[in-house]
């Protein structure tokens, strides 16, 4: 009698522990990679600070990485709530001034295109395709949204927004579809073709911004304004509705990948193209389809970003979304539910980078360096997993280690 009563909490305790254990196994490699990368980043900050004349080599210098990361944190998560800072230990240490939610919102704004483009890159990874061209698809998606948004006359705002978003996604899908088509028909590897298409997209932006889509009367090469298609701002200076589009896309892509036949086929081709062909799946068709969906998501990212923030595009528009999306997809193991937190992390770093540069004098490009080091630890996870406590941990990359196999060779 009393035994039965006693085992219940025990069993629950054990299952809780098992869930904890499982969560740790999944999260260990990414979390340790991020922490180690931030440490290496601190070393980079210290080592390079001697390049700046007037740097005094004394104990105060050791505080520089702390000040840099503090500013990075305040710029991305600063909030008016003191308890929120207590929650994350660095808060009181840093003492973010001028508390408002702006930094917090900016993190989501910056993460929005990364979520969408990251979902696209991750989808490609699942099919064994490496889409390095999110950058170009993003640019053209934004241009598609500008084109439709600015050419629509007055009408219902919602129609303008929806049409502009669809245009962005379609243009992005078409652009990536070219690379998919070339891979399927001739075997030209998408790593080379998508990069080439990125540069073509840049030239198209420059042409459209100074030619067909040029804002009349503007001395600078800049496109017309999207007018009615601008996304409504809900919070802070630029917390636009697009954030929710990105958040909704996560479960949709997850459902597509794991609960639909096409999604299954994509994963099957990625896992074993040979076997999937025997199962009656046509890898060529699927290659084009996957690239098109991936490009559609990256194009949507561009459209959302443009309609939400700048509303028009200068010819000199520059973005790091292409590489960021790759990092996000790898960090999130190509799983939509992993991509979401990965994109928020990177979005936070992008949001805080400006404040870091202003307050600590550490260039914003540090984020790229840290990002590369995160990836380095992620791929070298076989070494990380020799550390105590990480032995049972899952590999950092999931299903994405079969791509080089298709390199240079024809896809039969």
């Amino acid at each position, binding site marked *: 009698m009393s035994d039965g009563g006693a085992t219940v909490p025990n069993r629950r305790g054990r299952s809780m522990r098992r869930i904890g254990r499982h969560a740790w196994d999944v999260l260990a490699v990414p979390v340790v990679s991020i922490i180690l990368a931030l440490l290496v980043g601190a070393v980079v900050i210290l080592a390079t600070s001697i390049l700046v004349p007037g740097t005094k080599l004394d104990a105060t210098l050791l505080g520089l990485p702390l000040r840099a990361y503090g500013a990075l944190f305040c710029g991305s998560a600063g909030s008016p709530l003191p308890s929120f800072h207590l929650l994350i230990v660095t808060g009181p240490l840093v003492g973010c001034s001028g508390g408002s939610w702006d930094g917090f919102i900016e993190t989501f704004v910056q993460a929005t295109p990364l979520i969408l483009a990251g979902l696209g890159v991750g989808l490609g990874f699942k099919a064994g395709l490496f889409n390095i061209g999110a950058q170009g698809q993003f640019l053209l998606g934004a241009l598609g949204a500008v084109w439709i948004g600015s050419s629509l006359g007055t009408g219902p705002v919602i129609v303008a927004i929806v049409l502009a978003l669809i245009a962005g996604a379609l243009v992005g899908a078409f652009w990536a579809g070219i690379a998919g088509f070339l891979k399927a028909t001739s075997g*030209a590897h998408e790593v*080379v073709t998508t990069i080439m298409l990125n540069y073509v997209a840049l*030239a198209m932006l420059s042409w459209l911004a100074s030619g067909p889509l040029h804002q009349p009367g503007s001395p600078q090469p800049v496109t017309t304004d999207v007018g009615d298609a601008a996304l409504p701002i809900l919070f802070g200076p630029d917390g636009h509705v697009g954030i929710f589009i990105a958040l909704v896309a996560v479960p949709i892509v997850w459902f597509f990948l794991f609960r639909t036949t096409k999604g299954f086929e994509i994963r099957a081709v990625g896992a074993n193209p040979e076997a999937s062909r025997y199962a009656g799946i046509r890898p060529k068709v699927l290659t084009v389809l996957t690239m098109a969906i991936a490009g559609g998501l990256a194009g949507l990212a561009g459209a959302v970003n443009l309609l939400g923030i700048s509303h028009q595009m200068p010819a000199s528009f520059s973005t790091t979304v292409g*590489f960021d999306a790759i990092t996000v997809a790898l960090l999130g193991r190509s799983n939509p539910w992993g991509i979401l937190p990965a994109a928020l992390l990177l979005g936070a770093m992008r949001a805080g980078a400006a404040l870091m540069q202003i307050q600590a004098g550490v260039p914003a490009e540090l984020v*790229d360096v840290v990002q590369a080091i995160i990836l380095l630890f992620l791929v*070298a996870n076989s070494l990380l997993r020799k550390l105590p406590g990480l032995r049972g941990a899952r590999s950092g990359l999931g299903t994405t*280690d079969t791509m080089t196999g298709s390199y*240079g060779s024809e896809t039969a």
Partner: protein
Amino acid sequence: MDALVNGLYGIPLLGLVFQFGGYVLAELPTFAHTAVLVAVPLALAAMCGVLCERSGVVNIGIEGIMLVGAFVGWYVGVLVVGIMGPGHATPIFGLTLPLVIALVAAMLGGMLLALLHAWLAISVRVDQIISGTILNIMALGLTGYLNTLIANQSPQGAGNFSPLALPAWVIHLPVVGWLLGAFFDQGPIAISTIAIVIVLQVLLFRSRWGLRTRSVGEHPKAAETVGINVVRLRYRNVIASGAIAALGGAYLSMEVTNSFQAGMTNGRGFIGLAAMIVGRWTPLGAFGAALLFASSTAIGQSISFDPPNGQLGDLIARVPPQFFDALPYLVTIVILAGVIGRSVPPAADGKPYEREAAT
């Protein structure tokens, strides 16, 4: 004769083709010179690719290695000039001590980054395309970071190498003058590139090292059986290829210009990869492909400097100038897609080698 030419020019479309041919012929000396100038970094990138992939390692981090070469070459020049002054330039090539030290440093920097790729690809056995991407992100990040950090000091660079400056009578030689001018009226890195291509072609197909390298790239297990150390050879070749790619980057910041801009390689590493594929993984073929890709840039440049006149000129005037910026990338895509089915990579390309346990 003139009547015939005029007659040919009169035919629609075909006439345009003739006009274009005539234009290129008239511009040939400058055109060929520009093409070689532009082809050099592409060719060096392709040589890096050939060396890696012939040994069985895929390297898409060439772009990153070039960027590091460009930055290190320029910045070490700045540092050395700060310590020992600009030095005296030699009459040929304008070599100075800081420039030479900087060039060596650039190649060492490239080798260091290549070592990272070699370690990831050969020892850790990670996916080589992801490893190459990490190289690219890291190079873009680090060079951008350092460039921003030192930008407001307006650093004084070490200048750049100067072209050979052939005597005028050589360039005006009939028939071969323009060719000599194109290839040898160039700076030291460009001229070494031609030598590197030829030496690599000979070594790869006519030497013991070349045979070993190719066997390691085609069938590492067989190579190991006959006593070749697969891992060591792959390490050596990948590290050496880093020096070549870095030379291509240094060419941009030390020979064509004397400054560094973030991301100044602009995809040349990837075009180099495409040149390698189109050239069927041979140094000479890849060099030819690099020249082909470069001629599209050269056409764009010569049209913007000296636009053709007549019917062709009217047509070209209506083409937006950005089209010519995109042209090399478009040409790369089209040729790559057209050629690839007939271009077969080394059999063990991209496959990590794992020695079987002795039983």
